[in-house]
């Protein structure tokens, strides 16, 4: 599982890097950002799943690359791609929820509260592949992301994302680092 996850992260990184370079080449006014995050993924079973637990917990980790396409004094708009790997749910009884990969385009609107803090609303269309069964589904993800700039280029980010699947909801609570290259509005 770890080997699969590493392979996924490497391939994703490469794709994201290519994307970043391509977009940024035509975008000398904005810049780009690359962020990595990891944390807990909570699946909330519906009654149809007849689960003994109210929540199934997984570990999740992912990467996001975005190109900054617009900046005003307080607002920033980014477009990019996100990818995540989510592990099997923790072992509890005889049921485990399957691991999966998520990949999808992302749009992010950021409000800069001040020089240090920012709040973002993030919306994605995620394609999900269960790694064990190769089943493919698509669903929207929305996220709120707090960020705390602790150096010129780096910020600590705390995203809380909700995956809206047809049968159940999931919550991803992660923490990560964002590397941002580009100007701020002056």
């Amino acid at each position, binding site marked *: 599982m770890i080997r699969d996850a590493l392979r996924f992260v490497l391939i994703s990184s490469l794709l994201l890097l290519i994307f970043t370079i391509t977009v940024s080449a035509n975008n000398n006014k904005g810049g780009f950002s690359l962020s990595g995050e990891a944390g807990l993924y909570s699946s909330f079973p519906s009654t149809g799943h007849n689960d003994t637990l109210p929540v199934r917990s997984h570990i999740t980790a992912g990467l996001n690359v975005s190109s900054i396409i617009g900046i005003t004094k307080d607002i920033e708009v980014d477009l990019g791609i996100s990818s995540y790997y989510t592990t099997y749910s*923790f072992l509890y009884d*005889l049921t485990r929820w399957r691991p999966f990969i998520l990949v999808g385009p992302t749009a992010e609107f950021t409000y800069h509260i001040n020089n240090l803090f920012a709040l973002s609303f993030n919306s994605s269309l995620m394609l999900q592949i269960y790694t064990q*069964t190769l089943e493919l589904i698509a669903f929207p993800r929305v996220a709120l992301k707090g960020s705390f700039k602790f150096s010129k280029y780096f910020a600590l980010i705390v995203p809380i994302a909700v995956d809206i699947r047809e049968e159940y909801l999931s919550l991803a609570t992660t923490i990560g680092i964002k590397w941002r290259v580009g100007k701020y509005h002056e």
Partner: protein
Amino acid sequence: MSKKNTLLIILGIFLIVVLTSCELLMKKPAKPNVKVLLVALDYRHNSEIVLNGTIRDAKEFKQALAELNPNIPDSSFVEMYQEGPSPDTSSSTYPTVNNVLTEIDKQLNDLEENDLFIFYYAGHGVDYVGDLALAVPGGGGLYHPLSAKVLLEKFSNIEKGHAVLILDSCYSGQYVPSYDFLDEYYNPNLLVIAASSPDKKSYEGNFPVDGELSHRHGFFTYYLLESLGWDHDGGNLEKSSLGIITQVRGELKTSPVMHNGTITFSSIFRYIRKHNKAKRPFIVRGPIDKVLYSEKW
């Protein structure tokens, strides 16, 4: 507020969220009892439909499970075989439709909350509909069909415990319910793994043992055994008497699909799918998987 304090608060919130995950807080569930019903037929009574790998499939699978999980008592394995040229057709373990359904009822009624019941079948699947081709009472005839509908009605009603159907037969994908709460046969406590899609056959083949292609198995079960770590070249030699296998060849080694001491059925499915590319296995879709074995139980 300083940068350092802000960082500490954020990290603290994150740690609280992680540590409050349900699995870490809930009382550890009871160690599961595993029960296994193995049904296999070689159809030796009719030369036109003989299968030479099915009994070996079932017996090696039983041995692999017993070696994998020594906590399964021998009494938890029920074997129902039509084996050899003159099986005891009056036995309650002769795999007729009635005997098999009676045993399934008994096993399902005995299931407790965290128990696992594995139903394994190796034999013919009736053309295009996938009915299990079970023995005719009293011997003779070709087979008696057990339909997907009847079998799934039994299993889809389970409320306590977990059941896994492993079917190595043609068209067995017919037995895989849709991941749809409106599907009358979908039950999250039931997982079905089938050797073929609903419209495809599955096959037997000869596999190498001691450098010779002489070891007959269903393709699906061969890779199922491999996924558990079964080494066909190891262990004792296979012995048989009067057409009945009395000792299987092979021994259990390290499972390639065991991660952190745990084997899940989807990991097994993934292994079979990867190695048995020409014959596509089927499994219930959706997020829910079942655990076959864990060292942490």
